[in-house]
Structures are given as structure tokens and as C-alpha cells.
């Protein structure tokens, strides 16, 4: 079967499956998953491809078991992966926190669904806080990508594995049910392992080439020791912020309003931009590709040049908060948010853009 995967060619693929094939190409050794909509196509795809490739696939007894299997596999030096949707990702948080503390790499995917609670299976971005604030207990962060099309799902999955290994830190994709389930053409790029990835030999367990006993743990009982580990992590997060912040800017020149949106919301914002421009509204789009690290510095710089920001998100003001923090009051930040399967509509966004331009000084446009 692997010979049939047309590497380097353009194909039509579902988002969830594109993530799966990217992981297989990027030498993922072990995949562990538990069924949940809207990411089931990914687990199903991996159940076939991983076994075809002679690698590890387990449909686990729970999301908790899956992340802890990742923990074990990562500790012996393997590339491990899990995926789920919102409630399942909540269950994984203890394990992700352990991995962040023990500095073990893992790559995981959250195809967000409507929440809170069991919520619904409709597309949403409402796990933004969980994703960008670490998600579990303690002072930690995970590298979080926010792709907006199937090609990016594929490319950023590969990058996710590499950055997880490079920084010995969890890395993930925040997607939604639309991205996961839609079909789009993409080029199946060949995976190229970065030459500068550090060796896992100094810390991987069960390796006869290391003679001194090694310890993988997230437990440091003495206060100074645990605070030191935290400070070490913070230093790493600063390096990641400096090196790995990614974003895209579309049509900012001369804009009266800069929309800020990621993932599916950014695609809708892009189409609303065309309509608005036809109506004479000068609008551009700023699209974070990493939501942690968040492109705060760039947004802060843009706030010196642009008068208005409108955040468009499939959650109720979660990213709005980050944009306001980034802009530091230099310009008003408005928000258009829908959630739990509510999708921002082109016409509503255009209407809010008009309101933003008509707003009195100090007035904030907010649709919820």
C-alpha cells in the first residue's frame, strides 16, 4: 500500500486523513487513539497505515490510556502521537502536563467540537484557552499550530513532530470539524528530517548504550529543584517564541480595519474581505499560524500603523483577549464570535466591519 501513496503529487484528501498520512511520512512510530467525532477518520486511517508500515497502532481503552502510552513510547525515544476532540483532550491533560514537565516530545491533534461539556459534534474553536494556556496543571506551554486548509494540516503535522523533538516539548494542531472532514487538493510533500534534530540517546530509557541509570520523572519534591525546572522550561518557551512564531498577512496595505482570524474562521474572514472591499471597505487579514507562541509582537507593531482590529473567531472572545493583550490599548480591538457550531457568516462580518468604521471613539463592536 505504501507504494501507492503518490508522494510529491497532487491528490484529493480529507483533512483528518492528510494529518494521518503526514504523520506516517514523518516517521511516527506509535499512534494511540480512542474514538470521538469529528476526528474518527484520523484514527481509522492510522489503524490501517500504521499496521501496513509495521508500526504501533492501539485503539486504547480511553484517552487517558492513549496519552500515557505516548508518555511511555516517548521515554524510550519513539515518535508518538495521539488525537482526539475536545472532551477527550480534556482527559489527556494530566498526561500532557507530565510530558511537558518531563520534557518528552509528543505530537497530538485536537479537532475541536462544540462545548462545554459533551456539547455537540459541530465545528468550533472554543478550546483556544485550553490549547494556548498549556491546558493542564502547572506553568507550561505546548506548541500549537492553527492550520487553515488541508495542505497546511499536512505540512504542519510534519513540522509538529520535528519541533516536538527539537524542543522536547508537546506540540499540537488545533483544528475543527470542518477542516478535519472537508476534502481538498494537496501536494503530499516528501518528509525531510531536519539535520539539526538533537539525539535522543542521552535521555532515552532502556538503551544498553547508556550505562548510568536514567530517570524520567515530573516529580521534584524539593522546592528549589522544582522551581529551577520551571525556570528552565520558561527559558525554553522564550526560545520557542523567538524562533517559531508564525503568521500570515493578507492585504494589509492601506487597510482601515485589520481582521484577526485563524483556521476555518480565517477562511471565512478572507472571503468576507473580498465582499467588503467590493463595497469600498478597506480591510486586511492577519492570520496567526501558531496560536502559541502567539504573534503578539507583530500585532503590537501593526497597532502602530492601523486604526482598528476586528477579531473573528469560532469561540466567544477567547482570542480577542490575546489580541487586546498584544495591542496594549494602542488601537480598539472589536470582536465577532460564534460558537458551538455557529459559523461566522460573511454578511454578518461585513456588517460588523461597517459598524467598526462607524464606531464612536471608545466604542467596541461585539456581536455577543
Amino acid at each position: 500500500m505504501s507504494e501507492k501513496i503518490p508522494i510529491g503529487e497532487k491528490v484529493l484528501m480529507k483533512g483528518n486523513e492528510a494529518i494521518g498520512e503526514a504523520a506516517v511520512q514523518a516517521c511516527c512510530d506509535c499512534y494511540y487513539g480512542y474514538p470521538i467525532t469529528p476526528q474518527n477518520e484520523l484514527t481509522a486511517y492510522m489503524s490501517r497505515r500504521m499496521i501496513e508500515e509495521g508500526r504501533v497502532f492501539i485503539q486504547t481503552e480511553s484517552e487517558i490510556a492513549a496519552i500515557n502510552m505516548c508518555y511511555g513510547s516517548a521515554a524510550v525515544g519513539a515518535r508518538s502521537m495521539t488525537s482526539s476532540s475536545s472532551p477527550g483532550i480534556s482527559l489527556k491533560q494530566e498526561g500532557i502536563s507530565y510530558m511537558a514537565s518531563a520534557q518528552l516530545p509528543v505530537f497530538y491533534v485536537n479537532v475541536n467540537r462544540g462545548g462545554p461539556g459533551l456539547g455537540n459534534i459541530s465545528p468550533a474553536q472554543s478550546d483556544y484557552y485550553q490549547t494556548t494556556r498549556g491546558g493542564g496543571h502547572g506553568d507550561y506551554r505546548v506548541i500549537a499550530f492553527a492550520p487553515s486548509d488541508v495542505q497546511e494540516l499536512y505540512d504542519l503535522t510534519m513540522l509538529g513532530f520535528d519541533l516536538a523533538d527539537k524542543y522536547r516539548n508537546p506540540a499540537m494542531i488545533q483544528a475543527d470539524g470542518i477542516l478535519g472532514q472537508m476534502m481538498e487538493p494537496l501536494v503530499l510533500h516528501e518528509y525531510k528530517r531536519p539535520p539539526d534534530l538533537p539525539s535522543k540517546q542521552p535521555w532515552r530509557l532502556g538503551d544498553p548504550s547508556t550505562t548510568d541509570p536514567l530517570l524520567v520523572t515530573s516529580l521534584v519534591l524539593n522546592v528549589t529543584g522544582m522551581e529551577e525546572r520551571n525556570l528552565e522550561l520558561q527559558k525554553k518557551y522564550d526560545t520557542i517564541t523567538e524562533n517559531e512564531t508564525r503568521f500570515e498577512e493578507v492585504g494589509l496595505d492601506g487597510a482601515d480595519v485589520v481582521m484577526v482570524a485563524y483556521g476555518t474562521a480565517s477562511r471565512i474572514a478572507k472571503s468576507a474581505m473580498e465582499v467588503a472591499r467590493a463595497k469600498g471597505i478597506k480591510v486586511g487579514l492577519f492570520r496567526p499560524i501558531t496560536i502559541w507562541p502567539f504573534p503578539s509582537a507583530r500585532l503590537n507593531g501593526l497597532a502602530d500603523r492601523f486604526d482598528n482590529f476586528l477579531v473573528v473567531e469560532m469561540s466567544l472572545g477567547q482570542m480577542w483577549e490575546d489580541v487586546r493583550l498584544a495591542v496594549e490599548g494602542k488601537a480598539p480591538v472589536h470582536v465577532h464570535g460564534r460558537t458551538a457550531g455557529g459559523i461566522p457568516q460573511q454578511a454578518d462580518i461585513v456588517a460588523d466591519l461597517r459598524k467598526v468604521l462607524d464606531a464612536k471613539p471608545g466604542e467596541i463592536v461585539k456581536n455577543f
Partner: protein
Amino acid sequence: MERVFTKPVAMKEPRTLYCPGCGHGVAHRLVAELIDEFGLRERAIGIAPVGCSVFADLYWNFDVISTAHGRAPAAATGMTRANPDCFVVSYQGDGDLAAIGTAEIIHAANRGENFVTVFVNNAIYGMTGGQMAPTTLVGQKSTTCQLGRDPAIMGHPIRVCELLQTLGGVAYIARGALESPKTIMKTKSYLRKAFEYALDRRGFTLVEMLSPCPTNWGMTPPQAMTWLRENMLDYYPLGVVRDVGAEEKAQKPVAA
């Protein structure tokens, strides 16, 4: 002079943080002796669970990973599946294995994962200060069943070996005790069998060790040994509960 007794190479310098009379030190030593015996030190990984044995790395002179509460079987699965050459000893207390981690141990057993589980049953939560465990005996007192365990309110003590032995992936399950040299040696022979089966990749292996916790039982070490003998052995009978090798032998048709 001939040296007849030394510490195993797989054990670090002898010093202990465990309470006097605690069974964990003995259980650690049995593991270390067998790691030496089978020459596994370089590829061995021990699991330090959440519980009093969370610092197992202070005693074991081989690689150690500390896992989340109850998730040792999942982490062990992740290690042995990703690298079948490593030899994993998963070590769990009764709260870890039979309460919060019930799902993980059942499914690891059912999948027939190839690692050894040491299950230390001291009928109490040691580390958190003597709360009721799933294995606390009926009538036994703890800080969360101060009038004694009442099964009508708190359920019955779980016999883990008997619960797991029906599962398809199981190769070997036995219950020993750490209350006298005799039962300790017997327990070691069970653990040796589990090591052999795991090395032969025959499936899931578990050795339960009934173990004293004098501190949280509120007893002196000798009293704790006696209490274990007089109270735990009736409810948790010692012996081999499942041995697929022996079953196969018994089923072989005798040549006419």
C-alpha cells in the same frame, strides 16, 4: 573468606526511606535480584508509580520512569510496544492498580502486553496517610473508614488476581506474601516465572505481593506481620492463580 551474601548489582547503595517493617523494600530487592539473575540491567526499565514507591529510582540501579497515578500499565505498554527489546517492570500499589488505574490494568492484561507487573497489596493507601484502598478488608479501619469498612456502603475488597485471570491475554498470575522468609522466597519463585514468560513474550504477567504497612495499620512491624498472616491470607489466598504454560502441559494428549 567466601562471600555468601551481597546486594544485587541492580540495587543502589543500601539505605531506605521506607518505614521500618515496610514491604516495599523487600519487593524492590526481589525485582533487583531477578534483574541480576537474568542479566537485564542494561535494558531494564522500572516504573515508579504514584504511591510510597514513587522514589523507586533511589533503590533500583537501572532506568526508572515515574508515571501518573494508575497509568503504569499504559506507560509500560507504550515502552514495550515502541521498543520490544527493553524489559519493563511495572510496579503498582493497590490504590494505583485497583482504584484509579483499574481500566489500564484490565486492558493491558487483555491485550497480553509483555511486561511484568509487581502488585504490592498493603490493603491501604500508604503515601496519602492511610485511606481506604480497594483492597482494604471488611471491618478494617482506615482514616476514611474510621468505623471499619462496611461493604454495604463501601463495597467489597477486590481480589485482583482472580478478577484478571479470566482475560485472554494473561500468561501468568500468582499471589505471594512478604511476611516471612518462606513466603518471600516463594514470592520470588513466582516473580522468576513472570520474568521468564515476559522474556518469552508469552503475554501479561502479574505477581501480587501481600505487604505490611505498619505505619498506616498503626502497628509495630512484628504486629503487622502477624496481622497480615492472620487476616489477609484467608481473604487473599496465596498461590498460582493462572499459568498458561502449566495449562498447556496438562492439556497435551499423553502418547499412547
